[in-house]
């Protein structure tokens, strides 16, 4: 158990390091920074720009800049955003709250839809329910988040008379719904498929032979083993949710991590871009680790395998 945690921890650390190196190198090699724009301004002299470059440490070679950034990042200091003029870490923390809420709501919607529906589908083996689940999987899997977000915007514009109140609860849930569509299809496909497979296993036959009624067979014996793949998928889809939040947030005008990333890219605010990339990759690694941990808790056999 501890060995597993330690290995996961090291793996995650390596991944985050790799990502930061690659992003930093790309940003560095492409050249151009927040000061490039100042250069076009005739009122600012060459000397001022040189001085600014020294202040921000931009005259140092790439490797030194990277290690300087890294040593700051370890202590939680991600530098100062060149566009917003505030420390990156504070900015990222503040904005991530709203994205976190949105993502949680999206996961909640997907789970409350997928789990009962799969259970009903397995309990009452009717063709209509199976066809409905199939259709729902197809539709939610192939409706892009951007389309859903735009439709949500159109609906809210129709409902409200003049302006769209971005803080309204209706809009929040619409945004969460748009974000959750691919999750619904992933959870539904995985959980329903797994349940169907498990219902044909021998231990289910045994449970039935004991005289348990069908609902008890499903709830007590089939759900638990079927839950593990869902946990894997949930952990893996975290990246998709964070990526999708960029679109959903900017379409619906929410202030979150996604919109922060967009403004950082547009302003070529390198410290901020680096900070967000670091933050999101850490969050994703944490999510994956959590998903795996829950799996081990759920399935004791994994512990014996030394996983």
């Amino acid at each position: 158990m501890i060995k597993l945690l330690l290995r996961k921890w090291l793996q995650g650390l390596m991944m985050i390091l790799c990502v930061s190196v690659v992003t930093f190198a790309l940003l560095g090699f492409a050249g151009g920074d927040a000061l490039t724009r100042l250069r076009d301004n005739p009122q600012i002299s060459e000397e001022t720009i040189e001085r600014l470059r020294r202040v921000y440490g931009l005259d140092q070679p790439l490797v030194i800049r990277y290690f300087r950034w890294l040593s700051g990042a370890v202590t939680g200091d991600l530098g100062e955003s060149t566009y917003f003029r505030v420390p990156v870490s504070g900015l990222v923390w503040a904005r991530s709250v709203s994205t976190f809420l949105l993502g949680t709501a999206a996961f909640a919607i997907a789970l409350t839809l997928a789990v009962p529906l799969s259970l009903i589908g397995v309990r009452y083996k009717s063709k209509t329910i199976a066809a409905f689940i199939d259709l729902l999987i197809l539709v939610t899997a192939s409706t892009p988040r951007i389309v859903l977000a735009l439709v949500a915007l159109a609906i809210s514009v129709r409902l409200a008379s003049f302006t769209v109140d971005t803080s309204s609860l209706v809009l929040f849930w619409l945004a969460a719904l748009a974000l959750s569509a691919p999750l619904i299809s992933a959870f539904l496909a995985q959980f329903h498929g797994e349940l169907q497979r498990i219902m044909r296993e021998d231990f289910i036959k045994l449970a039935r032979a004991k005289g348990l009624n069908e609902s008890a067979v499903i709830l007590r014996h089939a759900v638990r083993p079927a839950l593990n793949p869902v946990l894997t998928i949930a952990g893996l889809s975290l990246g998709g949710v964070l990526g999708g939040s960029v679109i959903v947030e900017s379409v619906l005008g929410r202030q979150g991590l996604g919109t922060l990333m967009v403004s950082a890219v547009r302003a070529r605010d390198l410290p901020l871009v680096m900070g967000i990339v670091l933050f999101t990759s850490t969050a994703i690694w944490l999510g994956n680790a959590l998903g795996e941990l829950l799996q081990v808790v759920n399935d004791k056999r994994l512990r014996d395998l030394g996983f």
Partner: protein
Amino acid sequence: MFAGFLAPYDYSAQSRSEPSAPATTIHFNSLTPIIHPRRVEDQLQRTYTEDTSVAFPVGFFVRGYSYKLLGIAETDVHLFGVRTTSGIAPKINLLGTDQLGRDRFSRLLYALRFSLVVTLIGVLFASLVGILIGGLSGYAGRFVDTFLMGATDAMLALPTLILILGVRAAFPLELPITRAALLLLLIFALTGWAEMARLTRGLVLSFRKREFVIAAVALGVSQTRVLFRHILPNILPSLRTRALLLLPTFLLAEVALSYLGVGLQEPEPSLGNMLTAASDLDQLRSQPFSVLSPALAVLFFTLGVRLIGRGERL
């Protein structure tokens, strides 16, 4: 490919007198389709009325602005348009016009052309890289395998869109169309190979132990030849299905980038930057269908690809 032929107007041609016009209604006068010219009723409210006293017939194969068919033959024949003798004709805007008075239908066609070409080539690139890495990983030794698959896992775990935006931040904001297309291709190849690599590796590993491969190795066939002549043809169908499912992913990435203003830029039309019109809430309220027509096109594309993918798997 045939956008020039299908589109009645040039995608960048503006008619400033008719911004945000609604879609032209086509009337039928004893089987001949006709349209009426429209007048601006109110400049600020952007309302239009039809002038029913004059009528212009709509016809097929009408002459309009000139373009190059398939990039070679220069012609000015379009699939449909308004027939006129005097040279001045009202415009037929099937989906209305945008804020600058450009024909939305024509722009949509050109945008589709750009998006589809970039996505297709992007998928080809990414698949090639993915198959190479996956094949190598599945066939070469343990050390290479561990390293490559570690990289693949890291790649898969990352939020693709944020990664794409990160790569995008490294390049100047405003780019001409060809450079933007090249950049998109580069981004797709950089971020899209991981899934392909994972699948290829799994398939190669399973095929390595099959009798005919072992037979080939026993006959002294070289490693590269085994990989490319014996294994690759067998796993190609599965890879093709997977590549097909990559299409919507890339199309959506293009749409997202352009929507956020960091992909293809005005005046070139793309599905994404056409959708930014939705931020004009007044227009979104009055003509939701026209404004969201690019979104509808995207939806049809993703749904279609998924249905084809389903059919292939069966």
